[in-house]
């Protein structure tokens, strides 16, 4: 009797083990800065990635009609939490690939200590540090957002074009702030601008007045803040405004956070501009905007286009790789290299058929064409924004 029971149990177990792969859901990690300094930006980013996943599931699912599931993890925008979240996603959840993490520091740490050793492909929608370009990643790290090397240089040229010749730069002492600041400084100085103050600061301090006083002592009336608008960047901006250290304020994508005008008031931010990557006008962008608006999202929120593209690209790559996580990175290159039938946002059913037929496809995303260079980077377009009555308003493209 005992033997019989054991045999039944073993048979059942065996059956589940055999049956499992055929019906199991396919998981990808969605790792983002849910808490921490970019907490205000993260929810729409995750929502737009989720939109891509929903579209996959609504149009036939992934592989053999399985469901694609996004497992959300919190990187808290720092290396330690990012590593924890990625380790959990890879080892416990068993994800085949990761969309994220959101912050550069997390991307570097996660790639070095978790995903590169495990051979898992990651694609970040917002990790913009130039350091990511030079990562020894065995070709598994991609991004749908351009490197800050471009943004820092574009911002420097735009400021010079607008007649700002002398600035002070305050940057957050992390991979994001430092990379951006270095690119900005070299371009600004090379084109005849003067940097009259250049200092890093640690995040999460209560008072930055002494930092600001040091920066202001150089005599510049424009402060470039390369920080997060929901973290210490907000504190810096507030204290600079309250004490009149500077007249004009310039931020990069990290400062384009709704927290700035929600907490400081749009009426106080008339001299504040921020740059941010934007999708170039295209059919793809319109298709995404329509779908995301219908899903209740705001398509002009920062990094939603790149997040959507990252998730959609990852789904295509997983489909192309047949669910084999070791082949996802190689598949990523094949689905968006400029050759083959064009796939626009949301065209999952069409892409699935073409992949099944063995035809080449080329994804053209909401944020750009995403034809990755040899480092897994993409070129980008930027625009400058100011604070208007209803949030950020675009004032012009940047070159």
């Amino acid at each position, binding site marked *: 009797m005992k033997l019989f029971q054991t045999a039944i149990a073993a048979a059942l177990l065996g059956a589940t083990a055999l049956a499992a792969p055929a019906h199991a859901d396919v998981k990808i990690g969605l790792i983002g800065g*849910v*808490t*921490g300094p970019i*907490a*205000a930006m993260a929810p729409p980013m995750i929502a737009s990635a989720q939109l891509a996943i929903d579209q996959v599931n609504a149009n036939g699912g992934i592989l053999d009609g399985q469901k694609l599931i996004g497992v959300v993890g919190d990187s808290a925008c720092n290396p330690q939490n990012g590593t924890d979240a990625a380790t959990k996603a890879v080892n416990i959840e068993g994800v085949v690939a990761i969309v994220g993490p959101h912050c550069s520091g997390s991307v570097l740490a996660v790639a070095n200590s978790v995903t590169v050793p495990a051979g898992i492909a990651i694609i970040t929608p917002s990790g913009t540090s130039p350091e990511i370009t030079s990562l020894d990643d065995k070709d598994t790290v991609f991004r749908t957002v351009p490197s800050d090397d471009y943004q820092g240089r574009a911002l420097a040229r735009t400021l010079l074009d607008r007649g700002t010749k002398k600035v002070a730069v305050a940057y957050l*002492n992390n991979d994001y702030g430092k990379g951006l600041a270095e690119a900005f400084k070299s371009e600004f100085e090379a084109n005849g601008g003067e940097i009259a103050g250049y*200092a*890093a*600061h*640690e995040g*999460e*301090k*209560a*008072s930055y*007045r*002494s*930092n*600001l*006083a*040091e920066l202001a*002592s150089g005599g510049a009336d424009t402060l470039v803040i390369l920080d997060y608008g*929901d*973290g210490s960047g*907000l*504190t810096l901006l*507030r204290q600079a*405004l*309250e*004490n*009149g250290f500077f007249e004009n304020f310039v931020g990069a994508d990290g400062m384009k956070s709704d*927290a700035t005008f*929600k*907490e*400081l*008031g749009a*009426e*106080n931010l008339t001299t504040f501009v921020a740059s941010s990557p934007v999708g170039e006008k295209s059919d793809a962008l319109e298709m995404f905007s329509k779908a995301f608006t219908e899903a209740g999202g705001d398509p002009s929120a920062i990094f939603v286009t790149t997040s959507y593209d990252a998730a959609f690209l990852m789904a295509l790559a997983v489909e192309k790789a047949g669910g084999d996580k070791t082949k996802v990175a190689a598949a990523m290159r094949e689905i968006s290299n400029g050759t083959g039938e064009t796939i626009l946002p949301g065209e999952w059913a069409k892409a699935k058929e073409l992949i099944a037929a063995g035809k080449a496809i080329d994804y053209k995303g909401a944020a750009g064409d995403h034809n990755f260079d040899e480092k897994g980077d993409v070129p980008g377009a930027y625009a400058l924004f100011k604070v208007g009555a209803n949030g950020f308003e675009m004032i012009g493209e940047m070159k």
Partner: protein
Amino acid sequence: MGALEIINFYLVPGLVVGSIYALGAVGITLVFAILRYAHLAHGDLATLGAFLGLGLVTALGISPYLALPAVMVLTAVVAVGIDRVFYDYLRERPKIVTVMASLGIALMVRAIVQVVWGVDSQTYTRGIVRPENWFGIRVRDRELITILAMIALVVALQLFLQRSKWGKAMRAMSDNPDLALLSGVDNGKVVTITWVIVGGLCAAAGLFLGLNFELKAMMGWSMLLPMFAAAILGGVGRVEGAVIGGLIVGVAEEMSTLFLPTEYKAATAFAILLLMLLVRPTGLLRGKVL
């Protein structure tokens, strides 16, 4: 750089931050002296106080100053509750167990704040407040009130400790708990009173931090190191020492940017802490040696 600039941009912010450190450090020093462990949930208890204040301010539409007493009472109740449910249970165990437990409490309290109030930066009142000019010295009203409230709270606490029966019992327990117990001091009650005071001070520190800067889920945690540095600098168990320590750490942090690259500002408190432990472990006012 003129004297006025030094005062306006280095000394005044240093004193304001220092006052907030002082409020926190007084609580830390009381727990150190009476309960004999490092309370790592101190910063997050302050965060909770700040966000409870935000809850009252948004729900009732009152000014943060009016919310202060209610917030102090609420946080005190939470502190006593945490002690009853967690720390009391561990009282007979080695103290390091309680220290680790308090780290767990810190994470729990922060998670509750994040669940209830979200993770975005928030403020009590929207917009910015430009400083008033008093004969060239630029101070915002709220900064003046922060410093004055800190002094008032600490004076009240000192009077309580020196004059009242329970204050004396607290000091007795700080000197020698067994002897205090034999002399008829109810240790359990002293512990409760300590947590009431510590909870109230935490709430005040958090509220003033939120009032002067922004409310963030991590605000208290990032204040923990300077607060500990202040408590040890002043001498563990010495309330007036914690106040002096807090002010010194606050001013030293701001002044450090005059000599050091600004990214080292956050390390100032740590350097002071290490230096004191090496050179004078009893602190400036001869506190306990840990």
